């Protein structure tokens, strides 16, 4: 039991020191009351979605499926950088992307469903205001 208490204290001390430092730093830079940071410039992702929409509208769902893979790769590569900035918004976009990906990847994609999910994905990306440094 003494050992477990010692372990808890040993873990709690650096956590407390770290939290204290983060709070102090947040206060010092006045960012403590900026809860919803936006995800910054997502135009690169919007461009891909626009391409996919154009391909899908032209009826070439196979090409749309190929192009949306670029979105998947880019989105995944940037996950570690983007997600911590605003997890809620990141998950909202991620869910929209998952829906669009699965709409295109079923064995017989339905054009209506593809268009709906792509529009929803684009909307989720457009909600983000441009980053103000």
């Amino acid at each position, binding site marked *: 039991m003494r*050992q*477990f208490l*010692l*372990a808890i204290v*040993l*873990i709690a*001390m*650096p*956590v407390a*020191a*770290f939290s204290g430092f*983060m709070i102090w730093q947040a206060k010092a830079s006045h960012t403590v009351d900026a809860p919803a*940071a936006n995800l910054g410039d997502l135009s690169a992702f919007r461009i891909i979605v626009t391409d996919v929409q154009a391909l899908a509208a032209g009826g070439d769902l196979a090409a749309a499926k190929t192009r949306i*893979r670029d979105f*998947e*790769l880019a989105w*995944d*590569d*940037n996950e*570690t*950088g983007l*997600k*911590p*900035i*605003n*997890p809620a918004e990141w998950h909202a976009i991620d869910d929209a992307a998952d829906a669009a990906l699965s709409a295109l990847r079923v064995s017989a994609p339905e054009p209506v469903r593809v268009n709906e999910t792509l529009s929803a994905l684009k909307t989720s990306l457009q909600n983000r205001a441009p980053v103000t440094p």
Partner: protein
Amino acid sequence: MPTSRTPINRVPQVTVEFWLIKLMAVTMGETAADFLAVNLGLGLTATSLLMASILAGALVLQFAQKRYVPWAYWLAVVLISIVGTLVTDNLVDNLGVSLLTTTIVFTVALAATFAVWFAYEKTLSIHAIFTAKREAFYWLAILFTFALGTAAGDLVAEQFGLGYLATGVLFGMIIASLAIGYFFLGLDAILGFWLVYIFTRPLGASFGDLLSQPAQYGGLGLGTTITSLVFLGTIIAIIAWLTVGRRGAVTAP
């Protein structure tokens, strides 16, 4: 060579090299899981099933050694690292379980593993893995530490909005504190070992992200493929050195 009467520990001594390889294996696990699921386009479910079956094969090999053989042991650790990460990713992404729930569930699962292990063997010592049963408990505990470490690390990074660098610093501080406890304050070696084993998972993941992530997020921009290859190469080099030098094995308690 020890005689057949001398019990042989089937897992390595805990040395500096042990923690170095473990940290690198963790990073590999994170980036390799991503690479397989996304870059190779296998998807999360197929990747999970594939890696779980490869892990099962590696564990059969490891159990068949009946002594510490560096390549077999570390192959199993790298694969467990990948599968442990995938288990958590599946629960969170496919089944929609929250990271908080995942963290609690794996904490309970790990505690239960230790409780059953202790009830049967009256020890949790990692220096006395002499039988297949103890080895099974050892690997089950390791699988849960990876799953728990993944969930807890992601939880901290997401809930508190910390970047990977800050997350790395936090977990580095916890590990340093536990090391001080072990060396100077009489923290139990077995308890300390398992706690550090959990916390090296998020530390290794942050370290890997620092190397692989684009410079716009403060990383070094090496990319996941190069980072994985560098770590894999270093792990193989250390294991080759361990095998040739016959270091890290232990015969009896």
